[in-house]
C-alpha cells in the first residue's frame, strides 16, 4: 500500500539521519586537538580502567577501526565511562533523561491545552479587541528567552514569595524506593511547577498561533458552511468540524515539540538546577567529561530524530486522506 511504503522510506531516512549525526559527532570528538585517548580516558582513571577502555574503543588502532568499534558499541548502548560520575554513560544519561521527559511533557501538556483553547478562541473573536491585545502579548511571550522568564519567576515566586523551591528536582535528603516513586512524589511535583510554567509560557505561543491560523482557514471551508446550513449547533460546528480539522497540524507540532524541547530545555534546566539531560550536557562540556557530553548529545539527537518520525506517523494516522488511501 502507498501509505506504508511512505512510512518505510521515512523510517529509513530517520535511521540515515541518526547514523550521519553519530558519525559527525565521532569526527568532532576525534579531530579535537590532543590525543584521541583524551576523549575516553581521564587522567583520574586507574591504569586498569584506562586499559579496558582503550581496548573497548580501540584507541590505539586506526581511525577507521575506532569508528567501527564506536558504531558497534553504540548499537549495544555502550557509550563509555563518565569521567566525573565514574559510571557507564548510558546509566547516567538515562536518569537525567527521566527528569527531562517529566519536565518536557509537563510543560508541553500545559502549553498545548492552553494554546489550543486560546487559539480557537482568538480565531472565533477575530477582529475584536481581545484578539488585538492578545496576539501582541502572545508574540512577546514567544520572543522572551525561556531562561529569563525562569529567572523572573524564580525571583518572584521562589525567593520573593517563598511559594516554590529555588531549584533542583527533589529536596535534599529525601529518598525514594524507585525512580518512579520519586517522579510521582509530591516533592517532585513542587519542584517541577516553576520550571514547567517557565517553559510552558514560552511554548504556548506556537500551538496558539497555529491553531488560530488553522481555525481561520478551516472556517472558510465549504463543509463548515454546509454544517451551518444543516442547522447544526455552534458547538458541533466549531468543535466537531472546525477544531477537529484544525487540530491535525497542531498534533504534529506537539510531537515535534517533544523532540525540540528535550534539547531546547538546556537553559531552563540550568536556571532551575534541574538534573536533566541539557544541564548534564552543559556540565559535561564545561568539565571536559567527553564521554558523557557525547552520550548526552546522542540521546538528545535520538529523541529529536525519533519524534520527527513520530510526527510524520501521527499525521498519517490522524488524517484519513493519508491513512485510508486506496479505494478509488
Amino acid at each position, binding site marked *: 500500500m502507498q501509505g506504508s511504503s511512505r512510512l518505510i522510506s521515512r523510517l529509513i*531516512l530517520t535511521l*540515515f*539521519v*541518526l547514523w*550521519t*549525526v553519530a558519525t*559527525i*559527532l565521532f569526527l*568532532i570528538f576525534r579531530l*579535537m586537538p590532543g590525543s584521541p585517548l583524551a576523549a575516553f580516558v581521564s587522567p583520574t582513571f586507574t591504569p586498569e580502567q584506562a586499559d579496558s577502555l582503550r581496548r573497548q574503543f580501540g584507541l590505539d588502532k586506526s581511525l577507521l577501526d575506532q569508528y567501527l568499534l564506536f558504531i558497534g558499541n553504540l548499537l549495544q548502548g555502550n557509550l563509555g565511562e563518565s569521567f566525573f560520575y565514574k559510571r557507564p554513560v548510558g546509566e547516567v544519561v538515562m536518569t537525567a533523561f527521566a527528569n527531562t521527559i517529566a519536565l518536557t511533557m509537563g510543560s508541553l501538556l500545559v502549553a498545548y491545552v492552553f494554546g489550543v483553547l486560546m487559539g480557537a478562541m482568538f480565531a472565533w473573536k*477575530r*477582529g475584536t479587541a481581545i484578539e488585538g491585545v492578545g496576539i*501582541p502579548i502572545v*508574540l*512577546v511571550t*514567544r*520572543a*522572551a*528567552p525561556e*531562561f*529569563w522568564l525562569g*529567572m*523572573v519567576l*524564580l*525571583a518572584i515566586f*521562589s*525567593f*520573593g514569595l517563598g511559594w516554590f523551591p*529555588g531549584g533542583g528536582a527533589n529536596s535534599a535528603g529525601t529518598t525514594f524506593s524507585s525512580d518512579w516513586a520519586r517522579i510521582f512524589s509530591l516533592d517532585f511535583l513542587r519542584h517541577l511547577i516553576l520550571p514547567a510554567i517557565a517553559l510552558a509560557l514560552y511554548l504556548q505561543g506556537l500551538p496558539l498561533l497555529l491553531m488560530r*491560523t488553522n481555525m*481561520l*482557514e478551516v472556517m*472558510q471551508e465549504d463543509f463548515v458552511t454546509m454544517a451551518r446550513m444543516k442547522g447544526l449547533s455552534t458547538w458541533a460546528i466549531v468543535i466537531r468540524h472546525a477544531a477537529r480539522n484544525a487540530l491535525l497540524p497542531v498534533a504534529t507540532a506537539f510531537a515535534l515539540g517533544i523532540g*525540540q524541547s*528535550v*534539547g*531546547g530545555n*538546556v*537553559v531552563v534546566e*540550568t*536556571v532551575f538546577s534541574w538534573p536533566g539531560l*541539557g544541564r548534564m*550536557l*552543559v556540565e559535561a*562540556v*564545561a568539565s*571536559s567529561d567527553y564521554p558523557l*557530553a557525547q552520550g*548526552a*548529545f546522542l540521546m*538528545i*539527537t535520538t529523541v*529529536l*530524530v525519533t519524534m*520527527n518520525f513520530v510526527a510524520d506517523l501521527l499525521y498519517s494516522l490522524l488524517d484519513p486522506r493519508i491513512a485510508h488511501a486506496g479505494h478509488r
Partner: protein
Amino acid sequence: MPATAEAGARRAGGGLLAGLGRFLTLVRRDPFATAGILIYTVFLFVAVFADQLATHDPNQILYRANGRVASNQPPFGAFILGTTNLGRDIYSQLIYGARSALVVGVTAAFAVVLIGTLVGLVAGFFRGVADMILMRVADVALGIPFLPFVIVLASFREPSVWNVVIGMALVVWPSTSRVIRSQVLSLRERTFVEAARVTGSSQARILFVHIAPNVLPLSFVYGSIAVGWAILTEASVSFLGFGPTDTASWGSMLQQAYAAQALSRGWYHWFVPPGICIILVVVAGFFVSRGFEEVLFPKLRD
C-alpha cells in the same frame, strides 16, 4: 531582446531593488510591521552610537569618591540603572549589549538566509540529483539539536560570538530553503520563465534574473525571524557561560546576575532590563514578518 552582459546586470539590479521595494510597500501597510521597523531603527541607532550613549566603560570597575569599589549601587542615582556586584555600570553594559546583539543578529541572519536561499534556489530549479542530495542534507541538519550543537561547538573553539553564527549557519538554514524551494518549483512553471527559456536565456540567467527576485521577499521574512533567533541563541549560549567574556552582551549580563545571586537578592534592576531588550528586538522581527505574511496571504483577512 538584446541580452548583453550589461543589460543583464542592470536587469538583475532592478529585480533586486524591485524585490526590496515590494517588501517595503507591503510592510508599510501593516501597523505591526511599522512598529517592528521602528524598534529596529532605535536598536540600530543605539548600537551605532553606543560610545556616545554610554555613561561609562561597560567593563571598567568603578570607584566611589571615597576610593571604594562602587558595587551594588541602586538605580536612578549616580548610575542610571545602578551597578553590578563588581562595580560595573549596568546601563552602559545594556547599551553596548545592543552592539554585540546587532553584530550577532545580522551576521547570523545573513548567513542563514544566504545559505537557505541558495540551497532552495538550486534544489528547486535544477531538481533531480542536486535536489535529492541537498534535501537529504537538510534532513540531517534538521536532526541536529541546535542549542546542544552550539554548546559542543563552543567547547572545542575559543569562546566567541562566531560559534553562534557558525552553529546557525550549519543547522538553521533548512526551514528557509524548504520554503524557497517549493516557491521556486512553482515559479519555474510560470509563463514568464517559459518565455525566458524560449528566447534562449541561459539557465543561470533564468535562475538569478527571473526567479531569484521573486523569492527575495520570502528571504526577507525568514531573515527578520532569524535575527531574533540569533540574538536569543547568543543570549542562551552566553548565559550558559560559553560566550566571550570580554564583550558586554545581554546574555552575559544575565549570566553574571544569575551567578551573583541577583535573583534571591531581588536586584530586578540588573536582570530585568536585558530581558526586555531581548524581547523587544526579537518581537520586532516577528512583527515585521507577520505584517508581511498578513499582506502576502490576504485570504485570512475578512
